[in-house]
């Protein structure tokens, strides 16, 4: 069902956890649908210095969260915003069609986290 790359990220997820006092936090999904992703960001000089995630969801949800964090770590926020759910799925070598929609939300969570960060900057 899942590619080897997906299974690798699922079995050994990168960047799991929380960042205490994160600069930005974003969450998407809802438990009724079976998928929730939360992304924590540490931002420095407009770059993602650190990123962590917590995910409740299926194999695809966990693997996409992990993959996303690898993809964007060290990127500028604008570069990170250019990463879409599709980019993440492609980086994983594809996902089963049935999983493309609901379990492939990690980029959305990241974007929410970046918005959260930017919102806080403005209100400072």
């Amino acid at each position, binding site marked *: 069902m899942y590619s080897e790359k997906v299974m690798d990220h699922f079995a050994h997820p990168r960047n799991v956890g929380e960042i205490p006092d994160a600069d930005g936090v974003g969450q998407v999904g809802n438990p009724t649908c*079976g998928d929730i992703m939360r992304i924590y960001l540490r931002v420095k000089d407009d770059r993602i210095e650190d990123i962590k995630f*917590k*995910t*409740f969801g299926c194999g695809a949800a966990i693997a996409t969260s992990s993959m996303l964090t690898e993809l964007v770590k060290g990127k500028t926020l604008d570069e990170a915003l250019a990463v879409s759910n599709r980019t993440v799925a492609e980086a994983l070598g594809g996902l089963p069609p049935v999983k493309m929609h609901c379990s492939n939300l990690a980029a959305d969570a990241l974007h929410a986290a970046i918005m959260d960060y930017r919102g806080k900057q403005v209100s400072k």
Partner: protein
Amino acid sequence: MRRVYMDHAATTGVHPEVLVEMLPYLKENLGNPSSIYSWGREAKAAVEKARARVATLLGAQAAEIVFTSGGTEADNFALFGVARANRKKGNHIITTKIEHHAVLHAAQELEKEGFRVTYLPVDKDGLVRGEDLEQALTPETILVSIMFANNEVGTIEPIGELVKIVKDRNPDIIFHTDAVQAVGIIPIDVREIGVDLLSLSGHKIYGPKGVGALYIRRGTNIKPFVVGGAQERKWRAGTENVPGIVGLGKAAELAGIEMTERAQHLTQLRQALIEGIQEKIDHVRLNGHPTKRLPGNVNFSFEFVEGESLLLNLDLAGIAASSGSACTSGSLEPSHVLIALGVPPEVAHGSLRLTLGRENTQEDVEHVLTVLPEIVAKLRSMSPLVPEGV
């Protein structure tokens, strides 16, 4: 790596003795049972022997057993066959919210054909309440279909009592039970419980996949579902799956002989598994009835974790299990059965079904009890749903 198969409600392997009886019909004897020459007559005799064996297991007459391509076809046959044959008598059908999709989707099709269908609720343990059934009956009711035992949570329904409620009101109402998960596992006597129709499937009782049967009580008003040639005394067309039917017959015979022994073994392992999980893992919920349950069924919800990732991690550890119905693992909806039991959707997503079989051992149970708590802990450490302090 130790491989542990605990998904016997999804499918079982073929019992070696079953395969031995099937092989001649895959090798030397190619006969079509409808043919009159020797090969055909031998194949016919084999089919009739299998029919008698299945009948014996159920306390039925051989002529009341019609072979089908599986449990799903038997369910479709019952629902479509009764509804379409009795349309003039009434247009109301009663079933439950926890049926297998083979019944539910047939009922939904019948709604499109103009039938009215009542889907009975169940209590928190998955039991249908007699009062609910009684209230649902109308003068228009032609068919009641209630499963014997649920495939996800293992709850065993009081079919005998439910039949009585229906027949007391109107003996002409046809009662069907999907007994795919119960036949061969717990004792069933069709005369005693008084059902008119009963579905069963080979691959749930160490028979082959692709074969099942519908018990049709003599005199029941039902139309054939698959039409064509005159096989199965015109009840089911199509060249008979001779090796499959022979395999189902042998599986039925073995199930009858070994039932008590198998059930004891399964119940013991089941209790060890249930108690072990409850002891080792917090925030769990046993789904289904605590005692009125299939001997081999264990179904838990683990809060804050999602079922598929649980299954994948178990698979990486060599353990085969399921989350909700195996037949719907392609779906993204939480199990309709758990929702009907009142389990909140997010908890339903975190359900795990472990179904034991004859080859499982105490060591298998211990293996699961070692591996599972670690996996749940790992997933919870990644879950944004875990509240502070858990």
